[in-house]
């Protein structure tokens, strides 16, 4: 049986795809990550920056890093310069 779109069951399970999640990051002095969620960073593959939506109530000011962790896992983290917080997001 298909649930009604407005039913409580649907509302509970709906969530944003690829939503950023807070991350525990230790960084070098120049801001590049050294450790992500207690895993050492093997390689910083790339860095890019996003400054956008400055004309709205929710400006975006981020520094992204595409990393290979020492475990061999790929991950993307970013530092939100306004919130001074690190997040991970699937690449």
């Amino acid at each position, binding site marked *: 049986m298909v649930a009604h779109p407005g039913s409580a069951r649907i509302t509970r399970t709906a969530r944003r795809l690829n939503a950023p999640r807070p991350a525990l990051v230790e960084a070098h002095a120049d801001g590049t990550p050294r450790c992500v969620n207690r895993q050492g960073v093997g390689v910083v593959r*790339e860095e*890019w*920056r996003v*400054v*956008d939506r400055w*004309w709205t109530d929710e400006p975006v000011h981020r520094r992204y890093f595409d990393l290979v962790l020492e475990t061999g896992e790929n991950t993307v983290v970013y530092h939100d310069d306004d919130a001074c917080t690190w997040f991970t997001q699937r690449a």
Partner: protein
Amino acid sequence: MTYVELHSHSAYSFLDGASLPEELAARAAELGYDALALTDHDGVYGSLEFAHAAKHFGVRAITGAEVTLAGGSHLTLLCESQQGYANLCRILTDAHAGTRVPGKERDLLPAETTLDVLEAHADGLVALSGCARHGLGTVDPNGTARLARAFAGAFYVELQRPYERGDARRNAQLIDLAELLRVPTVATGDVHAHHLRRARLQDALVAIKSRTSLDGCERERRGNHESVLLPPDEMLERLPRDAALRTREVAERCTFDLTQELGYRYPDFSDRVESADVQLHELCAVRFAERYANANGHKRRARARLDDELQLIGKLGLSGFFLLHWEVLELARECALEVRGPGSPRHALPPGRGRGSSVGSIVCYLTGLSHVDPVAAGLSLGRFINEEMVAVPDIDLDFPRDIREKLIVRVTERYGREHAALVASFATYRSRGAIRDVGKALGLPFAELERLARVTDGWDATRVGEELDGVPGTHSGPRWEAFRTLTKEISGLPRHISQHPGGMVISTRPLIDLVPVQPAAMAGRQICQWDKDSCGDAGFLKIDLLGLGMLSAVEDAIDRIARLRGETIDLSRIPLDDAKVFAEIQAADTVGVFQIESRAQMQSLLQTRPENLEDLTVQVALVRPGPIQGKAVHPYVKHRHAKRADPSFEPPVEHECLREPLRDTLGVVVFQDQVLDVAMAAAKFTIGEAEGLRRAMSRKRSEEAIEAFRPRFVEGCLGNGIDEHTAHAIYDKLVGFAGFGFPKSHAAAFGLLAYQSAWLRRYYPAEFLCALLNAQPMGFYPPSSLVRDAQRREVKVLPPQINRSEAECTIEDGAVRIGLGYVASVGEQDARELAAGRPYVDVSDLARRASAKQGALEAIVAAGACDEWGARRQLLWRLGVTARGETVGSGNRQLALPLEPTAEIPELPAQTPWEEMLADYKHTSISVGVHPLELLRPHLPAAVATSADLPETPNGTLIQIAGMAIARQRPATANGIVFMLLEDEHGQSNLIIPPPVYDRYRAIVRGEPLLLARGKLERHDRNVNLLVSELVSLGPLARKAASEAEVTRALPRAHHFGHR
């Protein structure tokens, strides 16, 4: 210092660069750069400005451009040598050659060049493979390989690090490509702003260019604020090190200096058998014999003046310059003959006439460049040419518009499309454009933006934020905050290129080796990429071929008088002392008269009461910012009063040595030449020094430059026996003049035309009005006011009528018949075709046969041009149900069958007088019938005065007056005071609105066509003004009186002058 920025865009990349060239240059110096390249998109519009600014700041300017190739890829080109610069100009000229399609010149296509053109013009240029997003290296590796061969030894693969995702992969691929092609890499920053604080504006400009909002152009924007000019050390850290260090090598190759001699020469007639001096001597000798054959009294003086002048011209090497202008005027003569047609009554008129200081030259008079005999008129030469001049002088020529149109194309054909072009001008952001463009980019509500745009002062976009505070409503939040900041920052930035009103440059060497040339928006015309300042800095000779509406009007009037009355008028032979003409001038009855029709001129005329052409010459020059700021107007008026009362009156002067230079202007400085005369008489300046002072005064932001002359002036005065206090007082008087003023020769030329137009107005009022209406837009008054004024002087004006009107206004049985071209939405071509298709039997016949669009025909009916066939509403209904012909094939017309509509036209109510009058204004901007105030008068309180009551009202009386706003002035020299002209059914009245009242009633002053003003009547001698304390919109009352008809939008808007 090792890194040099080789890729930067200024605002001359038009909506893809947020800083002016001088801002980039200043910031580069501040950050420690010793060289910087400017590489705007497809142009060198700002390169000379940049080169001069960079030199000033001690930064070496590298000239270049980022060119677009077919397909949209980009290539960065930098000039190594003069040959390279010439090649760049040719490449850019080619890139723009196809941007205007014949027949659709208004639509601008993107510039693009080809690999073939680049290969053929590689000499002297260094090529970099282009930017990260669109660079040739990224987009087209095969094309890159071709150019690497063509630019052998001068080709670099360009690496950038804009901190976008994918930088690493792209740069790795580019490095691979460089290795494959065996060329080096070089790093650049792709700078789009001189400072981080301008980066937001760059985002907004991208949105404006994409014609969308910031939210809607995420792909086009860069996504971050990294494309700004950063310190060299930071760039070295950010970019691949060897590529970054190689920027120094490239910069050292590019030694071309744009500020140095470009190799420009104007056609100077040196290629003929005789020298230019001899040719000019011979030409003047022949003309002298003709012009002075019957001269009595001053022939000998004229001969001596000619000899002196020719000697000076020879010494300055300017004979070719005069011959070139003479040749252009001969071309104008040919054009005039074609435009006027053989046997035209206009044949007695010269093709054009000089203005400006050249009118003081007898050589100009003899070669036809001026129509005023400088010896008879007592005009001096010094301001035009003198022994110490360093630049070529300016000669401005005025032409009727139709002759000028032809002449511009003819000059291009005569000297060749590679040798002649119009000077560019750059439309820059002012308030209204800033409000609309920035507001739209930020996604702000359209209605709010339009409300602000209507009340803005118009010119200075830096004040938009303050003006926003005065608009009711809530304007808070990040978008509005950004709006305040960005409108300020965008102020003064160039938005697009357009053409100068008439400046042309002509070059012996192909112009396209000196500056790129591109097609203009008007067919047959082309413009160079530099504006008049850059052309001046490059030493280009600029010939100003200006269109003067009054010359067109005068020619039209003379033509009509000859055709209708059989009277041939030679304006050079009319009496110059006609008492009736001067009586009208003295009474300020001058609506429509050249130069002396404005509200300020009228007020001044009542005081000065000119009695002859010399007085008129002063009058024309008196009401200008220079004499006004120099506080010359009131003393001049006072001294004229005194002189009238006592002819032996001698006006006071600061020092006896000033008496002679200021004799004609009763002790005050009115003409530019007098600045020179005073400086020479008081401080013993040489003519060159004095001209230097005058030039300093005419420059923008010239305070420092003017003050630099003060010590030398005071010292000169002391040496001349003038005490220090008086010396400063005299200098202050000159400094006060620093605003815009006329040279006497220019005023004499304009004064003569003012008199000639006043004479035509006095003796041929109908023909003169007709000609004025056909020459619009021009002058101070809207056409509706010209019509009302003529009607008050008993000229009969008839409305447009489909079976009687021509395309333009005509004379019909002594009355002026409004032309079909005056009906809004009827184009010139439509109007001509409609007139050619006459007679029409009825509105159905008109609908079937006319090719004009339905909207145009409806406007014709609504404007009353078909009233002979019945009531307008009935006719509109019939028009709507008539089957119309169709255009088929190559413009042929398939007529519809003359079938009558099957349904009867219902009875429709007749239009009220209000509705008819409003429809007239709405559709033609003119109403020849009842004045709106005549209809409104019964609804106004009895205490409201009319303009006819004012002459009898005592000074100081509190009164109220109602009228239609016809002109509004906010002169920069009036400290925020606004002057308005109200028109009612009897005439005009003057309002003075002080700044606090203006601030309170700004929306009414700026937007309401009908208003009621309350205030105190002020009478000064013959001038009557209402000093306004309160304003009321009459819009609601008029709407009620007009049975809810839309009044405000139908009535014409007042003409606005000066600051907005």
